[in-house]
């Protein structure tokens, strides 16, 4: 087996049909290595979330090939086998939990995915451990419902879930964009901790190229459904080849660079 986790060839995903056909992902090809951190960077509507959902097997490709561990993702009849290995954290931690059940019971719900469910006692213990791993005392969330916690805490609950499931791959869809600036750093910290402890492959989906530069081994720039540029962070951000990447980098406000020249603006 190669050290490639994902491989895509001419992968496309379209919605609707006829005149209303929308191509969300347009013939992209790429590969993601084992234990690599890859960032899918693009602006809203560029297709990055749809691509992530295909990696997660929540959307099926319309055409092209998408391999996981060398085998087509849709090839295995039971998608749960895929989800045991590939997991996700979502953008909005509040909408990611069901508001009718306690957080703890939902964390325990993650064990549904296990082939053999551990004993109740073991499940409780593992939930406690996962909570401690994201720096939350089990008592803090005892009997609590999602709406009773802060955004930062809820995002950590999503991460605790990953500590329970210990997948090989994590798809992180804008995990920091709904969190206040202050809590952002701690979310990143836990993600890095996850990566180290579980030696995971992480696919970051983000609009923030600075964040992508900071965390990744490789960056894919997406625009209008296509991957317009991919490579190591330094190449992509310091020596961009595609016009789109150049414009994107130019348009991002950066405290150390002139952004808008006001003398020419007038």
């Amino acid at each position, binding site marked *: 087996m190669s050290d490639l986790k994902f491989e895509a060839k001419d992968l496309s995903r379209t919605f609707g049909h006829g005149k209303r056909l929308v191509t969300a992902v347009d013939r992209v090809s790429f590969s993601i290595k084992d234990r690599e951190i890859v960032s899918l960077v693009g602006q809203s509507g560029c297709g990055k979330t749809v691509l992530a959902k295909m990696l997660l097997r929540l959307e099926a490709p319309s055409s092209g090939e998408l391999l996981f561990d060398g085998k087509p993702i849709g090839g295995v009849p039971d998608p749960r086998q895929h989800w045991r290995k590939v997991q996700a954290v979502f953008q909005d931690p509040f909408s990611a939990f069901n508001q009718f059940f306690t957080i703890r019971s939902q964390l325990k719900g993650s064990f549904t995915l296990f082939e053999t469910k551990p004993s109740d006692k073991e499940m409780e213990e593992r939930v406690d451990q996962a909570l401690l791993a994201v720096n939350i005392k089990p008592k803090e969330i005892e009997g609590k419902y999602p709406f009773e916690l802060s955004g*930062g805490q809820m995002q950590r609950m999503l991460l605790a879930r990953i500590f329970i499931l210990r997948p090989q791959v994590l798809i992180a869809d804008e995990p920091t964009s709904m969190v*206040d600036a*202050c809590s952002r*750093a701690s979310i990143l910290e836990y993600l890095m901790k996850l990566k180290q402890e579980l030696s995971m492959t992480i696919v970051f989906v983000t609009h923030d190229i600075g964040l*992508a530069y900071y965390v990744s081994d490789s960056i894919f720039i997406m625009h209008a459904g296509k991957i317009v540029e991919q490579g190591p962070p330094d190449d992509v951000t310091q020596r961009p080849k595609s016009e789109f990447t150049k414009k994107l980098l130019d348009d991002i406000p950066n405290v150390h660079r002139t952004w808008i020249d006001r003398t020419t603006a007038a």
Partner: protein
Amino acid sequence: MSEPILEVQDLRLHYLTRFGEKIHAVDGVTFELKKGEILGIAGESGCGKTTLVSGLLGLYIPPLHHTSGDVRIEGKSIIGMGVERNRKEVLGQKIAMIPQGALNSLNPTRKVKDLATDMILAHEEGADRKVVYDRLRERFGRIGLDAEHVLNSYPVALPAGTKQRVVIGISTLMNPKVVIADEPTSALDVSTQKAVIRLLFELLDQGIVSSMLFITHELPLLRHVSSRIAVMYAGEFVEHGTTEQVIFDGRQPYTRALMGSMLSAEPGQKSKKPIAIEGAPPNLAKPIAGCRFAERCPVARLDCPTTKQVLRIVEGREVRCKYAESTPQTVGNMGAGST
């Protein structure tokens, strides 16, 4: 220096909850805005910046109430002037708002020219529609829109970037003294964001608007937008100085935290370690004895939660931190020197 256009004097505002509790959402804010100036106000959700905006407009719609303090435009107070006078003389006329959700701000069943005409007629009763239309064409052309087409379109037919421009165009039709831009770019992608900010500069440089308040939750963005910055936390300004001072040499640990959360794509960034700050802002219904940030501050000292903090001048800027002089450089890492 010229006379200040906007003066805000110790403004205090509160919400009255159903249970009779008073939430002091804006708690003693003072600042001035001079001609041609842009002041940036940065703060996270719940810091009181949106309430402050309502206060500046003189719009006190229950449950929001004016506690004390004054807001003056060109020397005249706008507090306590009745709803109808406020509508006619202040809103859109002296102070214009560029709201956050530009995409939903235009009446979907009204052509752009009709909405714009309504705006002008609201302040100039009996104006001739023909003259008004020519004026609209001229103004929309000036802000880089295909005036004839845009004016005769319904909002649904316009792309997001154009809609944002239309909103800015309509808001500034009366050549207001102060423009308040409330997160005008947060829903936009970076390229549109840049175009919008460029447009705001043009309006200022051409003298269409006299001064501007730019409100955002992204402190680093203000580096390129405003000449001065005020950082707001829990209803108060915690730091207020020139853009250089606040961005590169913030003395309130909170300012540093806001700066540190931004990561930029340039060499050397990989080695920096953002400081994690957990917890949430305090409950403003109860009086707070000491520093409002103390609970979350990574460098808080023993007496911080109990000692009353006042805005004082430290190295040329106002800051609300007892230990501002010695705020260690390790908090955040946008330390000076990297300019």
